[in-house]
């Protein structure tokens, strides 16, 4: 026995296959490898440890906001940070533990109301509530209360499988909004008016007083919170508990058999996520100097989910990148932001979408783009000849694109009804595109793009605040169907 020669790994005969090494798996990276600059960047990025990625990405995302004006910091920077914080918390619940928590936004609201109640003054229905706690106590209380609430909700739904949990939590979120809006008999939440009279963040301990009053100050404070939570969540995800979460997400039954307390793990994740949402909520209330029921509705929930899904569930870098992408597009598509920014963003997105659709074949992409441009001018020319009303409308705040739009897109006067039909036809065309393959698809893309531009210029740009929600809905569907792992997530390999 002792003089058996050791197996020679250089010799690729089946007899020498090493036990415990799967060649197919070990060569997976090489098969997946891409050449060129993109591949090199991808390799460099992939070679970094997760903590390195975070250390590089975090300042890269958040520092550029500092030289901007206060209003910009509030609209963009502050919201990105708050949503990054919320996404980090939701990521623990959805990404690590695999629980679909649709009542998450209620914890955000609960944190905000808790802070507003403990550090502010209001009176309603004959009750007056005046507490002016220092921020460190009220934030801490808000966080702990949220964690306890998460514990309760989690344990009341501990028997529930994925779908049931989703609907119970969705109902919980709805119940929270109903409660804050109207159902509260003691005036704690002040109904639909919300709580307005809230102290700014004011820390005082051992005789040292510190008040955060400027938006920039809140930005720094939130930045600190995000970094702190990032570190905690990162350490947690590498820990025993983090591994147990992921194991119970992949296969709860197997995890249970391995001796993991799956129910307790679920509740823990739930409560941990709730605590982070509570932190985000309390800072949000202070920064906004108010907590109102409409801040915590389904739309905010969708926004948080869009961040988590786009970033890639389970990836921390993804949360930061996702928050940036979603909040920037969300704010640009706001009705108070200049419409031309929204337009630029929309056409950029369209270009990216077309590029993604034809990423396999440059020829098809070139044909599609050229024929789209040609078709637009052709339709415009025909309409000018036979249907003058079709081109006599005006461009909605065109900016530098006015000329191009005027000559390429049909702009009828009184376009309301036509635009609605165009929207419905557009949905049908998109449905058709998904069904078609190869050159058929190339044939349908140009009319779709021309119609998209038509609908955008005549309908969507007038209501960007609604359009953005439509687009986020489409984003969720499209991401789930094409790249469920999101931007930074790792694709799951199904083991059968």
């Amino acid at each position, binding site marked *: 026995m002792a003089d058996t020669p050791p197996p020679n790994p250089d010799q690729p005969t089946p007899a020498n296959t090493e036990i415990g090494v799967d060649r197919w798996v070990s060569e997976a990276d090489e098969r997946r490898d891409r050449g060129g600059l993109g591949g090199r960047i991808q390799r460099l990025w992939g070679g970094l440890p997760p903590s390195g990625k975070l250390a590089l990405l975090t300042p890269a995302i958040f520092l550029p906001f500092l030289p901007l004006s206060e209003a910009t910091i509030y609209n963009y920077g502050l919201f990105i940070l708050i949503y990054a914080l919320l996404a980090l918390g939701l990521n623990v619940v*959805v990404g690590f533990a*695999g629980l*679909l928590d*649709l009542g998450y936004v209620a914890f955000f609201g609960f944190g905000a109301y808790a802070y507003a109640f403990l550090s502010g003054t209001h009176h309603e229905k004959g009750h007056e509530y005046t507490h002016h706690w220092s921020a460190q106590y009220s934030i801490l209380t808000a966080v702990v209360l949220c964690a306890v609430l998460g514990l309760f909700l989690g344990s*009341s*739904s501990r*028997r*529930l499988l*994925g*779908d*049931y949990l*989703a*609907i*119970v939590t*969705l*109902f*919980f979120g*709805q*119940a929270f909004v*109903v*409660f804050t*809006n*109207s*159902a509260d008999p003691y005036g704690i939440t002040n109904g639909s008016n919300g709580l307005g009279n809230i102290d700014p963040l004011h820390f005082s301990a051992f005789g040292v007083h510190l008040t955060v009053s400027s938006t920039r100050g809140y930005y720094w404070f939130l930045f600190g919170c995000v970094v702190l939570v990032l570190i905690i969540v990162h350490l947690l995800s590498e820990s025993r508990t983090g591994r147990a979460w992921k194991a119970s997400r992949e296969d709860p*039954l197997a995890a249970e058999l391995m001796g993991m307390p799956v129910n307790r793990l679920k509740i823990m994740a739930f409560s941990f996520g709730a605590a982070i949402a509570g932190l985000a909520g309390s800072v949000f209330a202070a920064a906004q100097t108010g907590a109102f029921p409409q801040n915590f509705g*389904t739309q905010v929930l*969708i926004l948080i*989910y869009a961040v988590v*899904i786009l970033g890639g569930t389970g990836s921390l870098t993804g949360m930061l990148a996702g928050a940036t992408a979603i909040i920037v597009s969300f704010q640009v598509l706001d009705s108070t932001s200049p419409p031309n920014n929204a337009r630029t963003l929309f056409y950029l997105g369209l270009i990216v979408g077309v590029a993604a659709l034809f990423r396999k074949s440059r020829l098809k992409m070139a044909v599609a783009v050229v024929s789209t441009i040609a078709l637009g001018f052709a339709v415009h020319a025909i309409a000018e000849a036979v249907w003058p009303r079709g081109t006599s409308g005006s461009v909605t705040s065109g900016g530098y694109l006015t000329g191009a739009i005027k000559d390429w897109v049909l702009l009828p006067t009184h376009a309301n009804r036509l635009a*609605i039909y165009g*929207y*419905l036809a557009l*949905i049908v065309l998109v*449905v058709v595109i*998904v069904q078609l393959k190869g050159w058929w698809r190339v044939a349908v893309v140009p009319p779709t793009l021309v119609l998209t531009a038509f609908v955008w210029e005549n*309908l*969507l740009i007038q*209501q960007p605040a*609604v*359009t953005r*929600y*439509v687009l*986020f*809905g*489409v*984003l*969720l*569907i499209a991401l*789930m*169907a094409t790249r*469920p792992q999101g931007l930074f997530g790792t694709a*799951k390999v*199904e083991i059968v």
Partner: protein
Amino acid sequence: MASTSRQVLGNLAGLGVLLAIWVVYAVYFSPTQGWTFFFQLTVNGIILGSIYALIALGYSLVYGILKLLNFAHGDVYMIGSFIGFGVLTLLGGPLSPAIPVALLVLCMFVAAMLGSGVLGLAIERFAYRPLRDAPRIAPLISALGVAFFLENSVLLLFGADYRNYDGYELISYNGIHLGGDAGVFVSYLGVLVISGALLLMVALIALVRWSRFGKAMRAVSFDREAAAMMGIDPDRVIAITFLVGSALGGAAGVMFGLVYSQIYYLIGFLAGLKGFTAAVVGGIGSIPGAMLGGLLVGLVESWAKGYLNGNVADLVVFGILIGVMLLRPSGLLGTPALQKV
């Protein structure tokens, strides 16, 4: 099997006792209002409940066959309600209908059911079929996206205004007075809604129990792979199930519009939640369960609205959902799921 049906009987008996106690309390000891108030609420609850039951059937059918929660179902119901309104407006509106009223109402129902059914087909094709083998969380998120897309598209196209069906104006303000003029009032419209819902449910049960398609559906729901090996095309069966469930939802939308007059783009959200609650209370996947659950949720909501107030009603329904899930996770008529490994 014997133990299962015994459990169902036990559930029903428990439910009966609870209801009996409540009825006795409400009729004899109700602090302010008399028995007419109670029975009026009950009638309203039955009307509301038959609408919820139709929605719940949509959830239950899809869940039974795909084990998937179709979050977008509430919005399919909303779209159905808008289609019905569109037909009503096209044909002259409630004040001056261009064709006989009976025909008009029939047209509204047919159009809404067809439209919602096709919408259901499209949703299945685009949001769910690509995700058939994905992790369980993926179709739920996709469904959330669909719901959001539908709601905001309607907001974008038709605005946030309330649309008025004027169902009583269209059909009749009259009704049946039970127990004299001061007694319980059942409008003809209510009778129409209840009988319409009953008709649809009977048709559904006949379809599932006796038709070839129903057999295929039960087979796919029992074991998709085995059914495929027997020559049933599961994709087709699933698509038709979505069609049927969504059509029921569309009909419920028109009924809601007729009885409650006002529709707008957000009605689907709460109605969907309550329809789901009904499906769970009755035992998700079970057709009679969905009907019973719908009736119960409608009754409870109506009672809560009458004796407490409108805002608390939603919280009460939510409480029932939590209670049923804790005490009877498989619902009143459902069979406890055995997990195969």
